[in-house]
């Protein structure tokens, strides 16, 4: 690790108040929602006495600041609380669901890059020509289609018609996970790719027109070697931050996609928790998502530093 990554620990420390703020906002927002978990657990024959008794048992009749204090106390000892609906530690639920969503998001990112890099290259090498127009049309369509609809179409075509993929689910083995997650990841990738393509295409065009590429060409470099060695690395720098920002959105998008594809990840966990007012689960999931966004932000800067030798975030800002 180069000395230029000295900024990482400090950046992570700066994130502590951010995450703390998120827990406060989420806590009071969900407690402002009308309704409580007892209402969803007890069915419609629940008498007011029984609802009150269960809320008391769950500690939901204490003042809000006291409940928040309890949440914080537990958090400091590494205890995320107990899910009200499942009556088991939230940490267990998150340990099961988080890897699923991470796999989905990382897989989507890989697919998005696999789609974007060649298409951006195609477009950038002949700007304004047919293939460039074709790629730009694709970015417009890809961004315009609602994600759930793309998901359903992929299911219909690739899973039901062709039988090439399973219709939703997650499978049991690592190999199966990849196979089951392909379509949902592709759905997310189709939504992410247009933005990556646009950014890459623009920066590739400017890199291709730059002096050092001309110099490399005059020295006899060309084709794929030139593209990999000179063009892609330099063009990738602005795209890294686009990808970083979008990873946060990708987690949001996975909420919808997980429902369509019956993927048991954080999104499914969160949606059910909100509906049943499972406060501890809502708190814990938002905490984890906030941490995820912070970590992705730091990783984006790390990637930046490694890609661009001129950047030293430990002393100054970005160029």
């Amino acid at each position, binding site marked *: 690790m180069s000395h230029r990554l000295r900024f990482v620990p400090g950046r992570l420390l700066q994130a502590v108040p951010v995450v703390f703020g998120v827990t406060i906002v989420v806590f009071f927002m969900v407690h402002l929602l009308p309704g409580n978990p007892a209402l969803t657990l007890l069915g*419609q024959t629940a008498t007011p006495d029984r609802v009150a008794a*269960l809320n008391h048992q769950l500690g939901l009749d204490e003042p809000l600041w006291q409940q928040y204090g309890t949440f914080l106390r537990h958090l400091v000892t590494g205890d995320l609380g107990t899910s009200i609906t499942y009556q088991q530690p939230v940490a267990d639920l998150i340990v099961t669901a988080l890897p699923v969503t991470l796999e989905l998001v990382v897989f989507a990112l890989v697919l998005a890059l696999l789609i974007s890099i060649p298409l951006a290259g195609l477009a950038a090498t002949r700007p304004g020509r047919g293939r460039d127009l074709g790629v730009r049309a694709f970015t417009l369509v890809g961004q315009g289609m609602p994600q759930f609809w793309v998901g359903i179409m992929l299911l219909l075509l690739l899973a039901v018609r062709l039988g090439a993929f399973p219709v939703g689910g997650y499978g049991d083995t690592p190999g199966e996970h990849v196979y089951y997650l392909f379509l949902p990841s592709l759905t997310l990738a189709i939504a992410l790719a247009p933005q990556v393509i646009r950014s890459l295409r623009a920066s590739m065009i400017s890199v291709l027109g730059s002096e050092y590429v001309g110099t490399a060409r005059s020295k006899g470099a060309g084709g794929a070697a030139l593209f990999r060695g000179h063009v892609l690395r330099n063009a990738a720098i602005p795209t890294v931050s686009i990808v970083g920002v979008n990873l946060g959105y990708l987690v949001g998008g996975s909420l919808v996609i997980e429902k369509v594809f*019956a993927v048991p990840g954080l999104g499914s966990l969160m949606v059910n928790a909100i509906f049943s007012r499972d406060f501890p689960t809502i708190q814990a999931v938002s905490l984890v998502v906030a941490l995820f966004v912070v970590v992705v932000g730091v990783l984006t800067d790390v990637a930046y530093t490694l890609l661009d030798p001129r950047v030293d975030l430990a002393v100054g800002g970005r160029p």
Partner: protein
Amino acid sequence: MRLTALTAVAAVALAACGGGGSSSTSTAGKDGGKLVIARAADALSMNKTTTFDNSSIYVFEQMMEPLFMVSEDGTKVEPWLATGYDVSSDKLTYTIHLREGVTFSNGSPMTAKDVKFSIDEDTKTGADGWGYINAAIDTVTATDDKTVTIKLKYAWAPILADLSLFSNAIIPDNYGGKTAEQFYEAPVGTGPFVWGEWKKGQSLTLNKNPKYWGSGKPHLDSVTWTVVPDANTRKLQLQGKQIDIDEFPDWSSFSALKSAPGITATAFPSTRIDYVTMNQKKTPLQDVHVRRAIAYALDRESMVKTVLYGNGQAADSLLSPGTPFYAKNPQAPSYDVATAKAEMAKSSTPQGFSTSISISSGDPNQGSVAQIMQSELKEIGIDLQIQQLDPTALRAARNAGNFTMLLGGWTMDIPDPDEWTSFAVDPDGGSHSAYTYYDNPDVIAINKKAQAETDDTKRAELYKELQEKTAADAWAAYLYYSPYAYAMQSSVKGFHVTPLGNYHLENVTK
């Protein structure tokens, strides 16, 4: 002095039916195979005494069985882990005889001690569970290994039906030496399937119980319920042969699957009734003429057509046809705009009024019903605003009485009308007459009489009267009776759903 009750139930009991109850469904399939059922929501808990959601109940019913079981047509109870019973002449003492040769899946034999423990356990959960169902029980005694004596506080006709509820299912005495919490993490019972694996949010698997008392059953090696929230995805999974059964497809999927090759879509008769809850604390809904006007203004047939895609029928009673003692009522309000207008003219607000209905956001059925109501009530001068709330916020509003109208639904848990009628029309039922704040002393008295009447003919009379009076009061506006929708691969045989919604997977082959 004891006398043997020679009711239909006892007659069945004396016929000593073979294992696994009196299944009339043919099981022309083969043994073995893994059945996969996809459903919208995951189970929450295996605790039979404190759990209220069907996703959990349908699962643990395969592991833990009660003494009596609702018949396939839902009209009566039949002996299950019991073989029969005697009842004293004062109707206060029930002596129940247990089936021989029943063992728990852990190998220990089921005895009267286990039965006493299980029923007492349920009764104790009065505050946060199903305990209220046992309110009439005074004591349960294990008389000898194979006999249990239940003493009642008062004559109580629904007692056998109450004992057939899943919360009274039989588990090992003292949780087999575990704590309740440990026990319900992997419950042990006498049922055809045993605990397998639960991946929360993803799937729950039960395996075949090789020690099951029902001869030759179950046929399947395992059953897995998978969580697939999106109805459309479930439909595609069924068409892609990834699952065997789609539990509760939405009605549009159901219609599409009816004509799909290799798929059987069945609407099983249910006890579900959907109705409009009218809060009588809100003016002018305390006026019976206003409520009747609303009830007459609703075109139920068109709701059945648009909302249920034709799968259902207009409702004319607070009981559904699948409930014992249902009586067809030609006098009940039906779609008749002229009568609705006449009732409005007689009411305290002949000029009409503005009101609102609160519905659950994201529930397409409720959205359609509310929109149809909106246009129909306009005809009689009622301006209806639709207010959408998320499901839990709506429950909170309902329980607090902060609403004018909303859409209610009820499905029976036991084959006896009392569970619902006491909740629906008796304010002492705990929820202000199903949140309508309806309070008619006459009706309450009839309901109480029917609870204590053990002669079925007399009971039928009382419930007929109750159904007529409540309909005339328009205590609620009945909408429709809808069946349970299931779609499955045509190779699945023996899958039957009772009007209470439970199914017996020991009869299923694939």
